[in-house]
């Protein structure tokens, strides 16, 4: 029997795609593997051990940076999600209004302007404020992170809102629900998966940020990524691999959760 002609086939495409997946994962897999190396090299395998996880755990700097990273990510993703949900409610499902494009451009600015430019701008601006107020706390980092997290929290909420059936709210209104009751009983429950997805995205983005943090932080305010960036200048030990692996694990869990959340009852 003759083979059926496969209209979807394109010569070499599958090979390139497989290569692509391999290339995407191989470096990460190696990175994870060497985090369990018993030796102090990231190239020569000397047996399995949790030694570098223990080293990282005992490292005061790593501990401080971890706590700082988590504090910033929690605050920033919370603030960003709150602001983004409100902004999404204001900019979605309305008739076109004056300033809508401007509002949309502003919300998405962090996605368009190169991070290094924003970083430099914040360095200059916050330096001015630091001089005039004397405040040098984590507030600057939290504010900066909140700003660039907003579009990431905004987009899933907006997508959810756009996919939502307008008549549901009208039906509720028809059934004697006041505007506040409509929001609480109909809009919010429908929106919730989007809000959660947005908050998680914002959390991951904040946790991973290097460039803006590097420019905005005051002395002694290293987060995990900036700490790692600093360490790369020295001799690299699998300790970095161990920290990376933990961060990777957090991201992977979050992404998978995000992935399933954004598919809930659409």
């Amino acid at each position, binding site marked *: 029997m003759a083979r059926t002609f496969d209209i979807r086939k394109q010569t070499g495409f599958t090979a390139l795609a497989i290569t692509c997946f391999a290339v995407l994962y191989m470096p990460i897999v190696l990175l994870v593997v060497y985090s369990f190396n018993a030796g102090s090299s990231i190239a020569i395998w000397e047996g399995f051990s949790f030694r570098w996880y223990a080293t990282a755990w005992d490292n005061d700097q790593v501990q401080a940076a971890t706590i700082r990273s988590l504090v910033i990510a929690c605050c920033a993703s919370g603030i960003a999600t709150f602001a983004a949900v409100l902004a999404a409610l204001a900019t979605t499902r309305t008739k076109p209004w004056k300033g809508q494009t401007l509002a949309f451009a502003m919300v998405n600015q962090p996605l368009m302007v190169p991070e290094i430019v924003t970083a430099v701008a914040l360095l200059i601006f916050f330096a001015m404020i630091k001089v005039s107020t004397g405040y040098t706390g984590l507030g600057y980092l939290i504010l900066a992170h909140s700003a660039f997290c907003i579009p990431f929290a905004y987009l899933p909420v907006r997508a959810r809102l756009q996919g939502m*059936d307008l*008549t*549901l709210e*009208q*039906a*509720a*209104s*028809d*059934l*004697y*629900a*006041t505007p506040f*009751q409509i929001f609480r*009983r*109909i809009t919010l*429950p*429908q929106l919730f998966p989007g809000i959660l997805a947005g908050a998680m995205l914002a959390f991951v983005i904040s946790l991973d940020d290097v460039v803006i943090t590097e420019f905005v932080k005051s002395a002694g305010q290293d987060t995990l990524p900036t700490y790692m960036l600093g360490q790369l200048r020295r001799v690299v030990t699998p300790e970095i691999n161990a920290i990376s692996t933990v961060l990777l694990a957090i991201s992977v869990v979050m992404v998978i959760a995000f992935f399933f959340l954004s598919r809930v*009852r659409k």
Partner: protein
Amino acid sequence: MIEIEGVTKIYGEGKSAFHALDDVSVTIRENEFFTLLGPSGCGKTTLLRTIAGFVDPTRGAIRLAGKSLLESPPHKRPVNTVFQSYALFPHMTVAQNIAFGLEMQGKPRVEVKETVARMLELVRMTPMADRQTGQISGGQQQRVALARALAPRPEVLLLDEPLSALDFKLRKDMQLELKRLQAETGITFIFVTHDQEEALTMSDRIAVMNAGRIRQIGSPREIYDQPAERFVADFIGDTNFVEIELLETEGETAGIRLPSGRETRARSGAEARPGKATLAVRPEHARLVPPEEALMAGTLAEIVYFGTDTHYHVALDSGARFVIRQQNAPHHRQTHATGDRVGVSFAPGVGQVLRD
């Protein structure tokens, strides 16, 4: 009783202004099954939404039992809507959906429970009470939407093309079900549809709408047998239009002259004036006869077999087409063939002279 008086809705301004509703006035009686019928874009849904409170009319008044509705937002109007898409809350069960309006009204929990149970029974959905709305069929969703809207006992129930998403068989069942529900609850139903058959079978009265205006209000029989104008005659059922000359009127009938020169009588409105006019004749009200006995003669152009009946398309000598519908009898043998000379005839008083 709902009084709608001079309701006008204009979208846009100046040259681009669009009259979605143009000076609509109608009084809907208590306990009536009232249908708004018209093609899409005729303003029937807009009118329904002004009653529900989702659209503010530009001008006009809407009163329920003598009290104006327009000042109240939707959630303070004692009317409920069955939406075209049903708009069931996807994050609630069937029972929770039905309870929603009652809860919003602040009814005591016991009463809510009782009413929900009663409503579930009324629409025969009791076994499905705890299902998610995504897990039930289209017909069942339809019933839940009905129960949800009826549960708060509104004074008026608005139905926005509620049957359009159902398949043919289910639609027939639901038509009867809706009639039954209306009779059992005694609530005024205002029903929007573009399906003329649906309107004819279900309604106490029908308002035919076009281009933002009500063209005719009447019982199904009046609308079908005595269409007031060409649009109504054309929109409801199939109609033959014949250009005629009106000779004189006498009460509700008029003497007319057909293009063939023959004269007969037809029904007409009291306001009809002598001169050129249009006569509407339903295909089933005309007969195929030998040419010499006919009011109008022509050639048989097409014979289309429909099972219950057969349609004969006659090319009249005047150039117009005329369709005759004759019921098929058992063992009936086709005696005509295309190309035959045939005649068209109808009884005096069967045709309707239309207003221009």
